């Protein structure tokens, strides 16, 4: 039973880090601080994957999100540099709409959580999923395998690259 307690404590720590830094990332006024807090959130998420014994996803989370996406965020913040604050009116249509969307989103997420996930608590399985199994699932064409979504994602990335080239090319 003591083992279960230790696992609960680790999970609680990771969850607290995710929750606290998510809120801080949204609340801070400095944009680079927000990116740093987001980095901490992504670290803790990777920690959750390692905690679940899914080390492949944890490593990919570190590589793609912490090592890739955050660096691109920081890069674009450094290149654009818009840390100046524009005073916004306290009440405006945009703010009311944002409030509405937030309340709606929280209600939806809360409903889904409470109706599906909340009552069940499962301990992580000890078995590691093999790299070969992940590879076959990702590259297979049978039912429950993911070749088509994988390729669609690559088309999306290609579109992003073409867009970046169009924006970034020199116009004579």
């Amino acid at each position: 039973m003591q083992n279960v307690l230790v696992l609960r404590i680790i999970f609680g720590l990771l969850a607290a880090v995710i929750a606290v830094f998510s809120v801080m990332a949204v609340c801070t006024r400095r944009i680079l601080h927000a990116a740093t807090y987001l980095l901490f959130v992504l670290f803790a998420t990777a920690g959750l994957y390692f905690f679940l014994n899914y080390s492949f996803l944890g490593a990919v989370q570190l590589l793609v999100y912490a090592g890739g996406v955050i660096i691109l965020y920081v890069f674009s913040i450094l290149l654009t540099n818009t840390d100046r604050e524009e005073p916004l009116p306290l009440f405006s249509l945009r703010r009311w709409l944002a409030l509405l969307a937030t309340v709606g989103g929280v209600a939806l997420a809360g409903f889904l959580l409470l109706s599906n996930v909340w009552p069940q608590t499962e301990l992580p399985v000890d078995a590691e999923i093999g790299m070969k199994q992940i590879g076959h699932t990702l590259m297979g064409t049978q039912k429950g395998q993911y070749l088509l979504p994988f390729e669609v994602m690559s088309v999306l990335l290609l579109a992003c690259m073409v867009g970046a080239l169009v924006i970034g090319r020199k116009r004579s």
Partner: protein
Amino acid sequence: MFDFSVVTTWIDEGLRGIMPASGAIAIECVLIGVLLLAVYAVFALVLILAERKVCAAFQCRLGPNRVGPWGSIQTVADMVKIITKEIISIRHVDSFLHNLAPFLVIIASLLAFSCIPFAKGLQILDFNVGILFMVAASSIGIVGILLAGWSSNNKFSLIGAMRSGAQMISYELSIGLSIMTIVVLSGTMQISELVESQNDLWFIFKGHIPACIAFVVYLIAGTAETNRGPFDLPEAESELTAGYHTEYSGMHFGFYYVAEFVNMFIVAAIATTVFLGGWMPLHIPGLDAFNQAMDYIPSLVWFLAKSVVMVFVIMWFKWTFPRLRIDQLIRLEWKYLLPLNLVNLIVMVLIVALGWHF
């Protein structure tokens, strides 16, 4: 050949005998953490001394020769000095990010360091995607460098950080792809299995031509990834004073300095593990007597000897080649190394599919 896991299992069983499992794990975590930091610091001291001696030899000087025999405890004295130095707080900097950045760099370096298999059974982190985790962990350091450059409120720092970020992102692709070439050959990403499967022959011989190309590309990209010469333009003194760590003082600067040197060792250690057999002795199929003789040399000696040779080659680069310009550096990666690497990967896949390797 002595297996270090005998020692670790003995400690583990001893601890579990006198306390519950979770307490034993907690104590082991603390022990490993302290040991890791100590080994990290010792490696950094030895490497800094080695760098100064090698540099002196290349420039026909003697190098440090006053403190201790042949100047051998010079870096210990330097360490004491830098620890007692004041960390100057600068006005108009973003102090949160400024103080956080060195720790991100050192944590990334430590995480990668803890994956290294030093000897048979002497490895801290080992799981089924170990080599991928190692590459992922070392990529976190770039965030630290970018944040350092931004938060210093200094144009030199900012330009240095941008250069460094661009350089490390670019060369990370080459590192990943050249390691991927060997992963294709071996069929595993677990570091211990990578070493075990070089029991009959090291991968650089097993995969012959594509493995050699991948090895050379890895060495170039690894040197660039650690911001060392001839790719040290993020901190080129003549242009940028000291690049992204211009504004850092005391031990905060020391963290960057130490991380840079240990990162060089990590690059050498990955080259050793992935291409040159790690701690595995030189085994040639068919020559049983020779293999038996090689087994008498301890695995730790094999690993350290190969790594020292690789570290020497990387130092040799630094004191031989002139520094590249930023556009030449980026062009080298994106126009030459990356296409070469992709073609090389396909060649390796073909060779493995057709069974043309040893």
